[in-house]
């Protein structure tokens, strides 16, 4: 059957000053009509650039190869005149982007923006345009559509904004919808709703869909064809069943394997080494440390309120954490899972005293941490450490790695002199797998995963007993994530560390934690053993979370 779009030998490079960087190196694939093709890859794979080349929405410094072709309706889109390309955009081919908040114009209403695309391609104006916009909002599942027409982007939630983007994209009944990571910026439960919406729309209108994602499990539920990209080349392409059940390429196999599985608990996750194939991991089950008699940390009744200003004199409170109790035991991991606004990050801030609780107590080593002043707390800081989410922001860009590692030791007087501290730093760099060469370099010379490892080394300089991992792997690619998780597990075994592991990703938390707290809007709605929670969730919200986890092909098969 004739494909809708045929991408042939696509090459794209970007001019940066004197050099040029190749982002896409000879990618070819065909997008069929009336089905979904998924482009999967990690960051730097070239998936977004390939998709944007179809509609030529690339930055000014992009260069396409001379032999590259993108055929649509007999026309080579790469060589089409700007005016004819413009006529196609929004009408034959439309795009839904990743971040709906910034992709919508902040100063125009939702209705005006939808009406705009109707006016350009279908010539609808005024009342007919407004009515059609209303229909579209209804079709994408927005409640109270008539009111929402006059709303501005910032007045809507993330999920609603994305629905508006989808409405704009399908307004003129396109033949192809390009969805560039449309759910990555959304909460997991909302993600599920948007995926279902997209699948439904695709089936109803029989349009082709190009779905881009880094999450192989996610695309398994929606795609019929999959193309796996790595560093600008196609590693594997084919029907989704083949990809999932019989992957040919080593990279594809590695991608599938290094996600923490929901039903097993291997000792370590397989990783993609620099040389593929990945090593065969002996898969004994992981054994957690035993629960001690006395908990290491005991938190009771933790509450955190933030004052909000509303009106002239009234002040309402935002309750981020409402009365949370938990315990941590030596050598074990307490997992906290929840979506945005659940209060899980606030919990991390409270335990490390980066913010003070409005009420409640935290007992550690016989003292209540909430009662300590700044000077007293400093002594405890070396024992409770934290690794933040954003590896690009948690290291001072002006410090060398050596300085970053030296600072905590200097503060807590670890090590006899500067030399001794340097030696310890280098030993730690080796332990986290970075090598002594990293000592004199700056953070920007490292990748995200490497920076997280530097952050881990920084924590280790102080020999802490507790490490809070606040979404520490959420910003990392799947393969890198596995490396960091393995490192954390190794360190836990070696040093007897206790972790407070916080994430929105239930699969990762389930893999890492010995006990789980499920948080929703500031409260713990369920707690217990990971296996028990997975097999038999008690609370409605927990069930909702579990349903939202993308299972890959097995779910839809």
């Amino acid at each position, binding site marked *: 059957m004739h494909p809708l779009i045929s991408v042939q030998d696509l090459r794209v490079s970007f001019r940066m000053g004197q050099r040029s960087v190749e982002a896409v190196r000879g990618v070819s694939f065909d997008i069929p009509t009336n089905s979904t093709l998924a482009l999967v890859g990690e960051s730097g794979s070239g998936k977004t650039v390939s998709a944007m080349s179809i509609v030529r929405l690339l930055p000014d410094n992009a260069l396409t190869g001379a032999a590259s072709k993108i055929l649509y309706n007999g026309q080579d889109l790469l060589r089409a005149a700007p005016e004819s390309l413009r006529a196609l955009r929004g009408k034959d081919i439309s795009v839904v982007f990743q971040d709906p908040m910034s992709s919508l114009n902040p100063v125009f209403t939702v209705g005006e923006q939808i009406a705009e695309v109707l006016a350009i391609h279908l010539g609808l104006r005024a009342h007919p345009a407004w009515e059609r916009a209303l229909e579209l909002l209804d079709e994408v599942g927005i409640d109270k559509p008539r009111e929402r027409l006059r709303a501005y982007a910032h007045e809507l939630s993330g999920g609603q904004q994305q629905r508006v983007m989808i409405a704009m994209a399908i307004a003129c009944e396109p033949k192809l919808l390009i969805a560039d990571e449309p759910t990555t910026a959304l909460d997991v439960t909302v993600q599920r709703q948007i995926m279902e919406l997209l699948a439904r729309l695709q089936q109803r209108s029989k349009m082709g869909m190009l779905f881009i994602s880094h999450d192989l499990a996610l695309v398994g539920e929606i795609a019929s064809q999959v193309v796996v990209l790595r560093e600008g080349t196609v590693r594997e392409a084919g029907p989704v069943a083949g990809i999932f059940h019989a992957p040919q390429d080593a990279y594809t196999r590695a991608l599938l394997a290094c996600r923490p599985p929901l039903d097993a608990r291997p000792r370590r996750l397989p990783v993609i080494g620099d040389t593929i194939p990945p090593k065969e991991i002996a898969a004994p089950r992981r054994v957690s440390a035993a629960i001690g008699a006395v908990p290491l940390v005991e938190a009771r009744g933790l509450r955190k309120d933030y004052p909000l200003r509303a009106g002239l004199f009234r002040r309402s409170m935002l309750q981020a954490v409402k009365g949370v109790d938990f315990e941590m035991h030596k050598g074990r991991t307490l997992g906290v899972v929840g979506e945005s606004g659940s209060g899980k990050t606030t919990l991390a801030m409270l335990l*490390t005293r*980066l913010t003070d609780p409005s009420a409640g107590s935290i007992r550690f080593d016989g003292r209540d941490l909430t009662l300590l002043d700044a000077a007293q707390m400093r002594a405890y800081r070396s024992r409770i450490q934290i690794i933040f989410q954003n590896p690009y922001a*948690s*290291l001072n860009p*002006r410090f*060398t790695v050596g300085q970053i590692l030296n600072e905590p030791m200097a503060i807590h007087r670890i090590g006899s002199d500067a030399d001794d501290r340097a030696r310890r730093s*280098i030993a730690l760099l080796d332990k986290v797998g970075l090598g002594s*060469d990293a000592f004199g*370099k700056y953070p920007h010379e490292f990748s995200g995963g490497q920076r997280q490892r530097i952050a881990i080394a920084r924590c280790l300089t102080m020999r802490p007993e507790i490490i809070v991992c606040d979404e520490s792997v959420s910003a990392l690619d799947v393969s890198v994530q596995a490396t960091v998780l393995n490192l954390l597990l190794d360190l836990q075994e070696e040093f007897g560390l206790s972790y407070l592991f916080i994430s929105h990703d239930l699969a990762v938390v389930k893999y890492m934690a010995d006990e789980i707290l499920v948080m929703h809007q500031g409260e713990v709605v369920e707690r217990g053993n990971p296996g028990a929670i997975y097999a038999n969730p008690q609370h409605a919200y927990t069930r909702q979370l579990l349903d939202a986890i993308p299972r890959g092909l097995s779910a839809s098969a």
Partner: protein
Amino acid sequence: MTRTNLQALPRSAGVWEQAWSRLRQDRVGMASLAVTLCFIVLVLLAQLGLVASGWQMEVGTPFAPPHFIGKITDGSQSAVVAGIDGPNVDISDVDPLAPRYAEWSERAARFKTIVSAKSDTLPFGGDQLGRDVLSKVVKGAQVSITVGLAAALMATLIGTVLGAVAGYFGGRVGDLLEWIYNVFTAIPYILLVFALAAVLKSGPLAKTLGGGVWSLVIILGLVGWTGIYRLVRAEYMKHRSREYVRAAEAIGATHAARMFSHILPNVSHVVLVQLSLHVVGFIKAEVILSFLGLGVPIDMVSWGTMLSEAQNELVLGKWWQIVAATAFMATFVTAFSLLTDALRDALDPKLR
């Protein structure tokens, strides 16, 4: 591991080293740097009195034209006053002093008198009093540039310190500083300058500060800190909640350490660019203030005083003073501005 092993480890270039190597490749930037350095050297020489120290001497005829124009021979400016012929009447018999004349001329001849010949043309021409425009413009450069630099340094220091404290701590201290900022910015810039100028001109401080450029430096510095304060405060507020600062707090770093060891290096490139921009702004302000008579004292010369003289000269067709002052000022300000742009690009190439 011994100490030598540490030295053997590779060391990457820091921000300033990288910026310098980027600047080196920017031809416009290097040219502006060269021009700026020439001016700085000139200023230092003038400060030490090695050049242009004699700018007040009237070495030329009034309105002496520049060399390349040559002497104006239409008789419109002639410093030589034709000798006055005395009356051809001999009154020596009734003149009581007559016998002494011979003795006096004899005595006078014994004193060496220096007859300074006033040149008819000067390198850049002369002003109304015959002073050398080239010397004036160099001395003026010294005054204007020194004022600009000193005032900019003062304003930057005040603005950075206050901005850092306000941005980092917030709370009551921040509110107090915001109040001060609001008070200073509620008054239009020029009015505040005028008010301060009026006060420093005739008040008690006039005696202590008078006779120099310091009152001008203080005025400009006290009025100009607000822009830098705003910027530094915003930067500190932005960085205060960044994760690397939280991480520093988590490892136990003190407030001072966070403010100066952690955040300041990340903000210093912004401060440097602001400093350069203010130098240009203050030089231009000084020129205008001196023009109006509110700037440097009367016995000093700056580009502004030259322009004020030039205003009247232009209608007489004498353009060399205004051209000289404008050319020097434009050259320096352009070079410095281009240098600032190049510096900004070198420090943060993403802005391109």
